[in-house]
């Protein structure tokens, strides 16, 4: 896990970015920090315990990398390619992703809660045991993905496709659905209401 060192600014309770003494809100030059963090991530095929919360990344190709216990919470991601990446216990909650490619990823035990996805592809991905609660998706696709045991509680989908997905044990309790396709997906094996809980 990344180190939970508090930001040095008095009364700030956020965790400092990896390699820095401040959180993204209190960095003097967040774009320089993001550039340095991007260089650090690009330099290695396996990225462990990095906290990049709240930074902005644009136009990056991080395809094929493996991420373990990293935090991208509250980040702004634009035109970032995560194609074929592996994620374990990573946090993308409350991130805002626009035109990013998550296709062919293998993500397990990750949280995307509260994220905003615009024009995002998760096609052909292993998305097992992930938290998508409260996500808002527009013009996005999860087609041909395995969503076993993932959760979509209070999510809002618009122009989003879930064609031919495995939904076994997935919690699909959205609060808004506009122009959504579940074609060829096993919706009958998904948990569509809290009355089916066993735990």
């Amino acid at each position: 896990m990344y180190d939970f060192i508090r930001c040095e600014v008095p009364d700030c309770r956020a965790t400092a970015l990896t390699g820095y003494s401040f959180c993204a809100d209190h960095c003097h030059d967040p774009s320089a920090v993001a550039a340095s963090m991007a260089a650090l991530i690009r330099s290695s095929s396996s990225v462990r315990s990095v906290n990049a919360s709240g930074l902005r990344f644009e136009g990056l190709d991080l395809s094929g990398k493996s991420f373990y216990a990293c935090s991208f919470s509250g980040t702004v991601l634009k035109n970032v390619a995560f194609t074929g990446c592996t994620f374990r216990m990573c946090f993308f909650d409350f991130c805002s992703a626009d035109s990013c490619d998550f296709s062919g990823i293998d993500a397990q035990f990750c949280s995307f809660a509260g994220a905003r996805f615009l024009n995002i592809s998760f096609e052909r991905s292993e998305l097992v045991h992930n938290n998508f609660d409260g996500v808002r998706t527009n013009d996005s696709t999860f087609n041909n993905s395995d969503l076993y045991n993932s959760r979509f509680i209070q999510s809002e989908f618009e122009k989003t496709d879930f064609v031919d997905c495995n939904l076994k044990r997935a919690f699909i309790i959205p609060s808004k659905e506009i122009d959504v396709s579940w074609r060829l997906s096993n919706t009958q094996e998904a948990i569509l209401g809290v009355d089916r809980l066993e735990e």
Partner: protein
Amino acid sequence: MTVFFHYSLYGFANVYLVGNDETREAVVVDPAAFTIGLLDFIEGKGYTPKAVLVTHSHAHHVDGLRTLLRIYDAEVYSSNAMIGEVKCRTVRDAERFVACGLEVEALSVPGHSPDSIVYRIEKLLFTGDALHAGLVGKTASQYGSRLLKEQLSRKVLNQDDDCIVLPGHGPPSTIGAEKLYNLGWRAVRADGTPRY
């Protein structure tokens, strides 16, 4: 500190291994059925389990305890004095203790079960079945439901928004996400606090 996650097929429960990278000792949180898979998982990480934290004593979370203790010499922390034949070091609400060199705080949150404990290690919250991503734990009565939500509100939801929720079942979450999207707080008062 390194955290590893293992998915147990018995009850679809989560088992966690929290390793102290300096001492190479580890805490096991909720040892579900002890299988070859779990043993390989623990051995493969190269840590020696010296402590076990039990969030509550339902079978899906403690069934592997006896076997684990035959292999490893570990102290068991629980709000019960005994779990089956296993003697435990009893923890109380708000108690802080050190296990494997890691500072742990125990937070009592009865409701799902009378013995439910949330363990906090830095910004990690091991919530057992009291709090899952998007849901609060199942309870047997309206009184239990009200009690659980009240305890969670007072002791868990008041943690920082970036605290990580590592539940006994299902995917991880954060306190910030649970405050906004957990179905347990759907009925909210005008001032933003949960209505029980």
